[in-house]
């Protein structure tokens, strides 16, 4: 769909020869930290800015030189951009009116659309009488009523509070499933991207670091950036000392030795970054309780981070005093864990990943 798109601003390249395609009817997210170029990319798809190079095709048709008001694309803006001078119904009917549709037909369609998003009786209300979540739905209804080939969403949940955001996440996914419209969603919130999407592109510095299903990104990150950005991860920096099939043995500068699965080419002596997910590690009060086939480590509890189902414990590795985070199992077995307690832990090396360190980052600790 997008082919080698480039956008340069004065002195930096915001979007750097980026290519990707989105399957019709799927939910595609572009995930990246702020300033990675995702908004620029979205605005190029919508047509507000023109790419310096490359082309964007929607539904097989090149969008070169096509103005935003002529593209089969609609956008849900970050601040929603509902028209405050119009009622909810007029907002939804706005695009239909621009197509020269008769008043009766407009009313019928906008009412039907409001019905579908669960705002059947809100047509005559003013925009500022609605709650945040309702406005969200009006913004989506206003775009979907035009039956676009593609709906673009620019961090539409960013302005909502946490609880509503969680709720709207589910609602968005259900809306997309019921309408079957292709959604392209940009966000810096990895949880939104993982929960909502069929496919996610992780973007950094104007390029896609990795594209794949949420599961791929989480379990099989291809670059250190993705491993660090998607989900929580323990990052350990060291040098590969020995290779053992698909696994590598890594020693940190201060002598902690861990094992992890190699991703990409890693030769002995290379600087590497190891990533271990908190839920991959197993915690035990004594080394004897750990699986015997896994390398064992010991540490001291630094603090217990209670967060319901997401509770974790922050350890210091016994010898190096490096921080290591382990997710607490839901069995309640560690509910009496106290700081300064001595514990043992291990992790399956094949579920930890290591990459050759990016230039300039070797030796830095996360």
């Amino acid at each position: 769909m997008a082919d080698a798109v480039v956008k340069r601003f004065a002195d930096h390249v915001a979007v750097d020869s980026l290519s990707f395609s989105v399957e019709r009817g799927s939910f595609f997210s572009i995930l990246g930290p702020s300033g990675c170029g995702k908004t620029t990319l979205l605005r190029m798809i919508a047509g507000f800015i023109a790419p310096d190079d490359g082309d964007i095709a929607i539904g097989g048709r090149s969008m070169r030189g096509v103005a935003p008001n002529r593209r089969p694309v609609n956008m849900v803006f970050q601040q929603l951009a509902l028209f405050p001078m119009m009622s909810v119904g007029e907002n939804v009917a706005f695009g239909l009116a621009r197509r020269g549709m008769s008043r009766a037909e407009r009313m019928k369609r906008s009412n039907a659309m409001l019905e579908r998003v669960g705002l059947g009786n809100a047509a005559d209300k003013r925009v500022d009488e609605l709650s945040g979540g309702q406005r969200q739905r009006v913004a989506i209804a206003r775009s979907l009523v035009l039956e676009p080939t593609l709906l673009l969403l620019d961090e539409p949940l960013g302005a909502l509070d946490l609880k509503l955001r969680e709720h709207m996440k589910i609602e968005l996914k259900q809306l997309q499933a019921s309408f079957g419209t292709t959604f392209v969603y940009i966000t810096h919130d990895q949880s939104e991207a993982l929960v909502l999407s069929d496919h996610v592109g992780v973007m950094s510095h104007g390029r896609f670091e990795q594209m794949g299903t949420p599961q791929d990104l989480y379990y099989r990150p291809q670059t250190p950036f993705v491993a660090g950005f998607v989900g929580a991860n323990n990052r350990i920096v060291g040098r590969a000392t020995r290779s053992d099939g698909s696994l590598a043995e890594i020693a940190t500068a201060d002598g902690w030795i861990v094992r992890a699965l190699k991703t990409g080419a890693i030769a002995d002596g290379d600087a590497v970054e190891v990533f271990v997910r908190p839920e991959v590690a197993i915690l035990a009060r004594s080394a004897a309780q750990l699986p015997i086939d896994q390398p064992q480590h010991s540490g001291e509890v630094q603090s217990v981070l209670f967060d319901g189902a997401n509770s974790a414990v922050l350890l210091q590795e016994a010898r190096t005093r490096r921080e290591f985070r382990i997710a607490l199992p839901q069995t309640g077995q560690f509910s009496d864990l106290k700081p300064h307690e001595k514990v043992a832990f291990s992790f399956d090396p094949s579920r930890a990943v290591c990459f050759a360190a990016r230039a300039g980052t070797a030796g830095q600790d996360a």
Partner: protein
Amino acid sequence: MDPRWHARLALGLLLAPALLWLGALIILPHVDLAVLSFRERIGPRQYAASLAQYKTFFAEPLYWHVFLRTAVMSVIATGLTLLLAFPIAWIIAKLARGRAGSLLFIVCLIPFWVSETVRTLGWMILLRESGVLPALLVQMGLTHVPVELLYRDATLLVGLVYTSLLFMVVPLVSSLESLDDSLIEAAYDLGSGGFAILRGIVIPHAAPGITAGCIVVFMLTLGNYLTPTLLGGKNSQWFTEQIYTQFITRFNWEQGAAFGFLLLALSTALVVLGLRVSGQRFGDVMRRT
């Protein structure tokens, strides 16, 4: 001391200059003018209550002709000012970023550092028969002899628009600046062209600013004395000149006071009408000025 009484005293003292201003300079003279306008001189130092001053106004065609002409010309001048100021305000508020915007604003403001009289005399130097522009027209071969450009309605309108431009630009800029760019983008994205965005989004949003600017400009124009006198001369037939004549030349204060009240009634009526037509509320509009 009772703290409530204390607070009231403080408030009273704070408001005192404004109240004094209103009372001594606006209300008191107007009450006196009202009394003046409703009396008639029947002998030396002898006055009686009467509607004669107002009757004279309607009986004498020159008076109400000038009155209507002033109203119509003021409306035209206000409309022209709006048409001219809107693109300027749009450029300042939306297109020029940062320094360029403030620079443009200052460019609009600079003429106002010069006194209105001097500015208007500047127009006279440019436009009079022996002035710069007629000479230029002759040199370019467009006219054979220098043309007198002063004392024409068009000249008068140019002068009035020029004088009022800033008072239209300021409220327009502030109301356009508060328009979220994403609303324009959203309308564009939903299929609107430029004109539909202007009509459907920009003008409704800027309506209070437009109305505020129009009210201020209209009142300034209607009550303007200097520009019509200097640029329009005897032909300008501006109502303020009639008032001036009554007070100063004819020394007929009663007639002048009646004219003053008629002008006040006219401006009030037209402002109310304007608010009705545009569907704006006075309070909202005044907050924008």
